[in-house]
């Protein structure tokens, strides 16, 4: 690592290298962005971002306008959802959504009225005049999330907290085969990206922006360089990086551009960097300055199974089948539809699921283009996976332990540094779906940790309850014992002297420091009584009576001593479970 390499570009910036990676066939289209007709029905999943799902604020039958909030953020890590056209809410129900699990999730279903009437928005003349918190709130209320595919709420990444940020990295690498939407956005909206960079730099206090773009996107590179020149943005520069998957991984791009590594399980913030996708920068700019919430994005609809591969400007919520139709339809029935790229995307359960904020690509693969569904062979530890792992992991060892259910050992092999890029699975001669095993191990570990936290809380509660019950019990017992001692002291009968002595002893065993000089004076009886009360109090406060105290009985009166000893022992036994060996 840290091996510098220079490639041809204007300023010849120093570049570093990341380990592993793959040169994959690119299959990228270089098509202009096309608009598509308004869909009739739109489906808005409430969970389109990392974090808590949004809460619906409309009801079935409500009329909504384009840009109107239909579900509000719920909690800090959450964003609202906006209607992407005007129409009527026809259902709020479970619908199949684009998720690796293939499960359904709650969605708001909107019937378009075809008028596409926009809700009034507020515009900002000078973003620098805004308070930073206000800026973040605008971005949050606009529902902007990371458009590179992870869909993390962007306003959180505009808040560096106590971290000192020097560099904003804009990710335009787009390293996965087939995906071409970022190149299209860079080529057609370069000015907004550069302005967005200025805005984000302002928000996080960064001094410079580096836009990292793979060398196979000349149109995007040229357009951005032109926009930077026009805006005289000397603090923004485009750095061309070699095309190699997964160059666009946040960690890999930062390593290539700066030579710095994000600490394990840390954030770019930890090394003074904030990283956003290029299209996100544009969306942030439009949200703040034009008051445009995130209601559309560019999606590449492509693959050998698509008749006319296209870059489409898509209203969020549009069903995938509409996207496929707008790109000429499927070239072959039974093609596999993938949301995302071929390396990290997931197969869709059907074509009716909607496009969401995270959707960067719809890929149609014919049966001939995908790996045959055959059982995996055993791992032969050839190590091809380790050669290509950009994180420097040992996928073969991770697999071995994940498969055996030895999740603690997978953590010894740094499972959580895996970025799930899929390079290992791509080169595996045994055709093992390695990433799937790592995802499984991760979720198992998370579940285990959750269980453990729950169990710990339950155990603490239980222990606290036990302690409380024991305390109450001890208090009761002590009170009872003291009362008994007091009663016996009261029952002073034929032998006042001996009784008084015994009482004095009983008192002494609880408060041994007290003076217990036995006299035949009746005053002594009263004194003993007082001391018994004192002993009761002491016992109630948790003092443990000790038979040893009784042994201090004066040797000159063996009867009294014996009596006192017996009583002390009884008291001790009652207030303490411990068997008293001295008694």
């Amino acid at each position: 690592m840290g091996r510098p390499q220079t490639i041809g570009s204007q300023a010849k910036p120093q570049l570093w290298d990341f380990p592993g990676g793959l040169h994959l066939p690119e299959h990228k289209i270089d098509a202009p962005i096309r608009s598509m007709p308004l869909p009739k029905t739109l489906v808005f999943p409430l969970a389109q971002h990392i974090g808590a799902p949004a809460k619906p604020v409309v009801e079935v039958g409500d009329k909504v306008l384009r840009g109107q909030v239909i579900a509000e953020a719920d909690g800090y890590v959450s964003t609202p959802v906006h209607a992407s056209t005007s129409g009527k809410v026809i259902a709020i129900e479970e619908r199949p959504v684009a998720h690796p699990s293939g499960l359904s999730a709650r969605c708001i279903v909107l019937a378009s009225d075809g008028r596409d009437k926009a809700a009034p928005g507020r515009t900002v003349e000078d973003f620098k005049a805004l308070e930073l918190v206000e800026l973040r709130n605008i971005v949050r209320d606009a529902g902007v999330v990371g458009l590179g595919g992870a869909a993390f709420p962007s306003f959180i990444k505009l808040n560096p907290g106590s971290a000192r940020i020097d560099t904003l990295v804009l990710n335009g690498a787009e390293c996965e085969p087939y995906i071409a939407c970022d190149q299209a956005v860079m080529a057609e909206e370069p000015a907004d990206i550069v302005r967005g960079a200025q805005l984000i730099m302002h928000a996080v206090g960064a001094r410079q922006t580096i836009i990292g773009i793979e060398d196979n996107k000349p149109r995007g590179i040229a357009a951005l360089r032109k926009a930077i020149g026009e805006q005289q943005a000397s603090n923004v520069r485009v750095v061309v990086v070699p095309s190699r998957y997964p160059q666009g991984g946040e960690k890999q791009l930062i390593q290539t551009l700066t030579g710095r590594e994000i600490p394990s399980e840390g954030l770019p913030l930890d090394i003074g960097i904030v990283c956003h996708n290029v299209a996100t920068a544009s969306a942030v700019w439009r949200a703040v300055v034009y008051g445009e919430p995130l209601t559309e994005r560019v999606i590449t609809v492509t693959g050998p199974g698509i008749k006319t591969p296209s870059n489409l400007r898509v209203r969020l919520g549009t069903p995938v089948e509409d996207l496929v139709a707008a790109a000429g339809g499927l070239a072959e029935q039974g093609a596999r539809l993938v949301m995302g790229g071929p390396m990290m995307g997931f197969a869709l359960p059907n074509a009716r699921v909607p496009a969401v904020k995270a959707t960067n690509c719809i890929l149609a693969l014919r049966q001939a283009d995908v790996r045959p569904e055959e059982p995996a062979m055993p791992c032969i530890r050839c190590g091809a996976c380790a050669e290509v792992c950009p994180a420097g992991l040992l996928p073969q060892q991770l697999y071995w332990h994940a498969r055996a259910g030895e999740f603690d050992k997978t953590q010894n092999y740094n499972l959580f540094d895996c970025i799930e890029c899929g390079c290992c699975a791509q080169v595996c001669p045994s055709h093992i779906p390695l990433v799937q095993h790592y995802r499984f191990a991760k979720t198992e570990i998370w579940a285990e940790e959750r269980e453990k936290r729950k169990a710990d809380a339950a155990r603490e509660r239980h222990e606290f309850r036990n302690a409380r019950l024991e305390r109450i019990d001890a208090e009761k017992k002590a009170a009872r014992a003291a009362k008994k001692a007091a009663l016996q002291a009261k029952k002073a009968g034929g032998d006042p002297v001996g009784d008084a002595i015994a009482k004095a002893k009983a008192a002494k065993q609880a408060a041994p420091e007290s003076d217990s000089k036995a006299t035949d004076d009746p005053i002594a009886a009263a004194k003993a009584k007082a001391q018994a009360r004192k002993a009761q109090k002491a016992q109630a406060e948790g003092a443990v009576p000790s038979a040893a105290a009784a042994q201090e009985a004066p040797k000159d009166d063996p009867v009294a001593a014996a009596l006192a000893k017996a009583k002390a022992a009884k008291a001790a036994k009652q207030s303490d479970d411990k068997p008293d060996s001295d008694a």
Partner: protein
Amino acid sequence: MSGVTLSSPHLPVQPSVGGVMRGVLLALIPGTAAMVWLLGIGVLINIAVCVAACLVTEAACLRLRDRPLSPFMRDWTAILTGALIGLALPPLAPWWIAVIGGVSGIVLGKHLYGGLGFNPFNPAMVGYVVLLISFPTELTLWTVERADVATTLAAQFGGLGASALDAVTAASPLDGLRTGLSQNLTVDEARIASVFASGGWGWVNLGFLLGGLWMIWRKLITWQIPVAMLAGLGIMALVFWLIDGDRHADPLFHLMSGAAMLGAFFIATDPVSGATTPRGKLVFGFGIGVLVYLIRQWGGYPDGVAFGVLLMNMTVPLLDTHLQPRVYGQGKAGRPDR
């Protein structure tokens, strides 16, 4: 469209286990050809018998273990195991030697541990060592000159008496050296011929070296194990040769004799039983090289590749655990450089 969610990546994969094994078998051709040229047709018969024994045993084991036949019979691993054991056998060894070697390798070395991918020891070397320990006499039936077809067939399939066999067999160079040294001869006196003289084992080793380099170029194996093993053997030989050249053969002799190259590129590189981390591979290979020299020089056998590999196989879990590569974001990471 299928209703299942299929796991990424969604691209077709080129390599396969069978493909890797086929590549390794192809790479064996130059060295094997040199052996046939040096020792006669017996080499090929050994390989054929051994491969057949391995395939039959593999099928039987899979059937007994209730595993599917088709994917495992087509993975070429049993064929490779058979070929490697066959190459290790002397050209005049009787046919049942090859059979026992193949059966032992597959049963004891592979399926008793759970089959492909689960064997801690190199199956081919397990098979060979079973023979080495059980049938030491039959494993000395080497020749110095190419044996003709008739003699070979007679030796391998019966009909050649002990005296006739004695007449055609001769000690291999390593064995000759070892015997000579034990009779207080110097290296020069004990050595039968130069390794590159006609009939020299140097050509065989050169053939396997060629195949091995081709495998590295094709990325079928990585460089670490062969380089480290040859370095271990070469450095040991160099040190002792410099100390006393009369009692120790020179490094070139060691590197070009016996199973040095076959072992370095084809046997020690068995991925399943070998170390898998880059640094682990270096230690693994170097250890084998050192052990090969120790066994050749002071052990009870003329060559030491089999024992060297099996001994180092035992260290693999330790090496892989303690010689992990540095992971992204661990250690020195995270210091701003501006």
